[in-house]
């Protein structure tokens, strides 16, 4: 599209071109008021932003007027009125990334690209840099996304490397498109690798290239099978090599240069000549390098996958993530072969009430956060007297620090669709909508493809034998607003309005989308439904605790050795999750707390981590189950900083409708800002508590009512930390305005710190302890990393 622009010289022609292209988009998307979000998304997809001329054309030719367009376009985070650079760098500021220093990484990118304050785009127009709420790759924190490439474990000192890697990958991609070709041999085996967002962040794409290259060189023909997430996001890149005899060997933490060796070990090159040649070449290689001596192949099974074992063994029962690491997410035959769609077929020949009864008896509760019994919700919608009913799958997972829904949508799209269709048949809805958040492009692509596959098999338009009604399924892409996870706000956004929640009652079950009864279920809830139908309510209810049945998928991240996506029975304790599955604390720093439920949840202190986790137990501790993000916090984390992080998040995501959330949350943030910058007082703590309680009682929607939870739970369990801040001390050094960096007597004057300092705050003084110029120091922490003697540390200003 930029090329087309270049050719045009006169502004008038440019305007005409924009109008023409906008007309085509309008023709495709529609002219009704509720089409506004898809339409704006299409315009932004075409032009990279929302040009004024395109919007004028929208006012002229559709039912959308200026007031609606301004209201909607400025509400949702996805839309922008100014053009961005050619590439967009998105620095994830999710909880896990935050505690691992995302802000410093953001600053580092800006510094590396020499960006002036208050600008988003570099002067050459090549890069735009922005912060993003959560990319959902929490186990690889800090994470950065450049266009569609994701980079994990980005350290502030390595941003140049990331940029170089991106540039290189871009170049290779261009070349790769020209040289790709297909082989027509019988495959000798299968290599499975995860291609989820987080796997890609760890470099799966490079592994894939290495496999392809090695296969070409060796003449080996294997099937490269992208599979569903293993969940061991901290151990990636990970491949499984499956030989025709059914033997599977797993290689976690793989490097691209190990691939060739592995392939040679498992498969025979095509011709004896090539085999000989490669052996010869490898011997020469080995003479020159010592790489092979610690070769992955020579590691015993125990050592190679040893760290992975307890991670997977700790999760005996898989419901939502059944088939993990084996199933191709988009292979419908494989899904059917594993029992997929059996439940759906059973449902369409059963009385809908019997299906609802089954769900009721299973005791399953909504996985989206509230924990409302799913069966009762279904019953309400089924009983509603209306010909027109809707079912919506809520995939607007916005909690920073949570990525369960993303992985379920990317890895198990067929299971989610099956659950959605079952729900539609059970409640008698003819229209079903998959609402997926815009930040998950991969999930949208997979869902679209999965839906197409189901359509080809006649599974979507299948008529229920009881009601003889067809279900029409569509996908709606969210546009970047956390509040739209709230069901009434979600409905407002589908209707083409700002995501303002509305007062309940009436509940969506009575009066929802376009005024009709609407069932809204979370992705995970729906992905558990096929199991309940297939194996029976009793079998499901036997898992978990009496009041919280079944399994729960958690996103485990933070200061834990092995993060990832896990599925455990309800009632597992947090300590089991942290120690057994997570492998204990990173760097053996003691556990301080586990944050559950994201911005609506709370921090559970280490001493309460032996409580079995279910909906009621968590609520009792001042937290909530939420959607299932678990961020592990260590003694190095400051609880005031964590509370401030969440309050700042909600303050930016509040819809702005009611006073308590719009102004109240901002005032809480003001107080926390004062405390975290050393200007707070003891009175501030009391004011904060009072305000937090009022907000939780008087806000209109769930977002506002739960927004104070991070503050209230940390006040309840960690009040002493607030008091320390009021006295001017941040013991962990997380609140950067309260501390400075200082060099201790352990310094030998090696000057490493002076060499890495990007702000020239450390003078070059060989064999002497350098003084740090605190006025220049940006507290980026690079010197801390560089110092081998741990001779630099944070000290409180007061």
């Amino acid at each position, binding site marked *: 599209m930029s090329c087309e622009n270049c050719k045009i010289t006169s502004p008038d022609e440019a305007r005409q071109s924009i109008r023409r292209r906008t007309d085509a988009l309008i023709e495709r998307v529609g002219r009704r008021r509720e089409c506004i979000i898809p339409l704006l998304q299409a315009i932004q997809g075409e032009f990279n932003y929302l040009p004024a001329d395109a919007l004028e054309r929208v006012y002229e030719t559709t039912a959308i007027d200026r007031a609606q367009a301004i209201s909607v376009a400025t*509400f949702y985070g996805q839309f922008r009125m100014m053009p961005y650079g050619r590439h967009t760098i998105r620095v994830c500021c999710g909880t896990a990334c935050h505690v691992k220093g995302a802000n410093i990484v953001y600053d580092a990118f800006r510094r590396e690209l020499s960006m002036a304050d208050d600008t988003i785009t570099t002067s050459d127009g090549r890069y735009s840099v922005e912060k993003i709420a959560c990319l959902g790759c929490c186990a690889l924190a800090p994470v950065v996304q450049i266009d569609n490439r994701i980079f994990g474990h980005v350290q502030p000192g390595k941003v140049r490397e990331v940029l170089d890697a991106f540039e290189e990958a871009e170049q290779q991609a261009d070349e790769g498109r020209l040289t790709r070709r297909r082989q027509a041999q019988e495959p000798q085996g299968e290599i499975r690798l995860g291609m989820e967002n987080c796997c890609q962040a760890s470099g799966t794409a490079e592994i894939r290239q290495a496999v392809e290259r090695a296969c070409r060189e060796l003449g080996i023909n294997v099937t490269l099978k992208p599979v569903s997430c293993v969940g061991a996001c901290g151990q990636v890149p990970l491949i499984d090599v499956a030989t025709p005899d059914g033997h599977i060997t797993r290689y976690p933490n793989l490097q691209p240069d190990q691939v060739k060796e592995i392939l040679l070990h498992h498969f025979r090159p095509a011709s004896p000549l090539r085999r000989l040649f490669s052996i010869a070449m490898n011997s020469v290689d080995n003479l020159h390098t010592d790489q092979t001596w610690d070769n992955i192949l020579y590691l015993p099974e125990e050592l190679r996958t040893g760290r992975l074992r307890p991670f997977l063994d700790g999760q005996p029962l898989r419901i939502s993530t059944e088939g993990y690491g084996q199933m191709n997410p988009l292979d419908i035959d494989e899904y059917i072969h594993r029992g997929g769609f059996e439940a759906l077929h059973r449902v369409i020949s059963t009385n809908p009430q019997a299906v609802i009864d089954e769900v009721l008896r299973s005791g399953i509760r909504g996985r989206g956060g509230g924990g409302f019994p799913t069966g009762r919700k279904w019953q309400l919608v089924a009983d509603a007297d209306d010909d027109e009913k809707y079912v919506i799958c809520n995939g607007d997972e916005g909690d920073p620090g949570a990525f369960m829904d993303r992985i379920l949508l990317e890895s198990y799209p067929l299971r989610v669709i099956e659950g959605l269709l079952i729900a539609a048949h059970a409640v008698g809805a003819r229209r079903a909508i998959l609402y997926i958040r815009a930040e998950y492009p991969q999930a949208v692509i997979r869902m679209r493809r999965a839906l197409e596959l189901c359509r080809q098999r006649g599974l979507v338009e299948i008529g229920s034998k009881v009601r003889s009604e067809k279900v029409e399924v569509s996908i709606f892409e969210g546009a970047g607003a956390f509040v739209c996870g709230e069901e009434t706000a979600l409905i407002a956004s589908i209707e083409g309005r700002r995501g303002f929640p509305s007062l309940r009652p009436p509940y969506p079950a009575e009066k929802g989308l376009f005024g009709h009864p609407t069932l809204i279920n979370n992705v995970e809830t729906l992905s558990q439904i096929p199991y309940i139908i297939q194996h029976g309510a009793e079998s499901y209810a036997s898992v978990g605790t009496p009041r919280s049945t079944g399994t729960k998928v958690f996103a485990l991240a933070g200061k834990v050795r092995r993060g990832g996506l896990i599925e455990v029975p309800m009632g597992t304790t947090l300590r089991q999750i942290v120690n057994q599955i997570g492998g204990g604390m990173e760097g053996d720093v003691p556990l301080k707390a586990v944050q559950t439920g994201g911005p609506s949840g709370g921090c559970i202190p280490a001493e309460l981590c032996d409580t079995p986790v279910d909906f009621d137990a968590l609520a009792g501790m001042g937290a909530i189950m939420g959607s299932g993000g678990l961020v592990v916090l260590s003694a190095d984390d400051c609880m005031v900083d964590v509370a401030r992080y969440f309050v700042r998040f909600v303050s*930016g995501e509040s*819809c*702005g409708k009611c*006073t308590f959330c719009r102004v109240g949350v901002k*005032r809480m943030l003001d107080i926390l800002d004062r405390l975290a910058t050393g200007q707070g007082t003891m009175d501030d703590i009391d004011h904060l508590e009072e305000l937090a309680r009022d907000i939780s*009682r*008087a806000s209109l929607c769930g977002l506002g009512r739960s927004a104070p939870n991070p503050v209230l739970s940390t006040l309840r369990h960690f009040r002493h930390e607030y008091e320390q801040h009021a006295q001017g001390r941040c013991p962990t050094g997380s609140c950067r305005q309260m501390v400075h960096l200082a060099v201790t007597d352990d310094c030998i004057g090696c000057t490493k710190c002076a060499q890495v300092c990007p702000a020239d705050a450390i003078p070059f003084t060989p064999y002497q302890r350098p003084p740090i110029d605190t006025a220049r120091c940006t507290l980026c922490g690079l010197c801390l990393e560089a110092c081998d003697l741990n001779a630099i540390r944070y000290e409180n200003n007061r």
Partner: protein
Amino acid sequence: MKITVNHQPLDVSPHRPLIESLRAAGYDVPSMCYAADRRHQPSCMVCMVKDVHTGQMIPSCSTLPREGMEIETDTEEVLGMRRQALELLLSDHRADCEAPCTIVCPRGIDVARVLLHYDRGELSAAAAVLGDTSCDGCKAPCERACRRRTVDEAVSIRSLLDEVRRDGLEVKGERLEVRAKAGAANNSNPSPLTPNLSPHPSPLTPNPKSDLFCSRLGRFTDAEKERMKQLFTQPSRCLHCACEGSGKCILRSLATNAGIRTPKYGVQSSLPVKERIEVTERLVYEPAKCIRCGLCVYNTDDGFTFERRGFDMRVVIPEESKSHVSDEVARLCPTGALFSVKS
């Protein structure tokens, strides 16, 4: 339908919002974002009542009664929460109810109004406000309090007032009338602060209403000071701090009733201070005074609209949509953000 209000049974219509039934029954329930029979969404939360069964505070303007509902409207808890809602709204309300010059005038002159007439070229009206008051012997605290002083230099209030006295009274035939008016208005109310300084101590308007809540704009930032210099270039240089819509301001009267003197959380807002937008010839919009209730948004068609979200959310009126706004929408605005100017 039967519900219980403050432990008393009440018969209500199931189709009327609670607030209407409560008010009809004589309960005092304030509200700002609600207007009977007009489109609205609950936002301000000052109409809160407590649902005893759930313990939640609910907006009575948007809640329909349910059978057996039990609510409280006048407990300390409910009143405290309403006060909290007002505190929060006021903390985001960077505007002056009264002009500082008027507040400090020891002779009770409505300086702000004089300057307003002066800048509109209505000298005789300005003189009428001044009446027989005199500035002789006064140390002009008005000029010390003047907000313009924090920008660059104070407005020369005294010399301007003298000019009004001189030129305004020369307008033919008005002199006598003004005198008569001034004399009739008040002879029995000498200002307690200035007992014997003037031969004509009685002001035309009563002294600033000290019993009323008075919102303060606070300090300008450096950027704002620059903007003020560019915005206010008329002869008097007056910033016209006094709120022209204060007469109908529900926020002020509720704050007064709640006994609020100074806002608990300070005042800090993201809205552009002192911005003044002429929507139509007779309708003015000052965004800084807006509480974002949305009544003007919901009740105009393709006119006022919301922009952004959260604390930064504001009500805007695009230039192209101004013609879609009717003047009567000013009556819906619960504050002085939208008001009619008489032409």
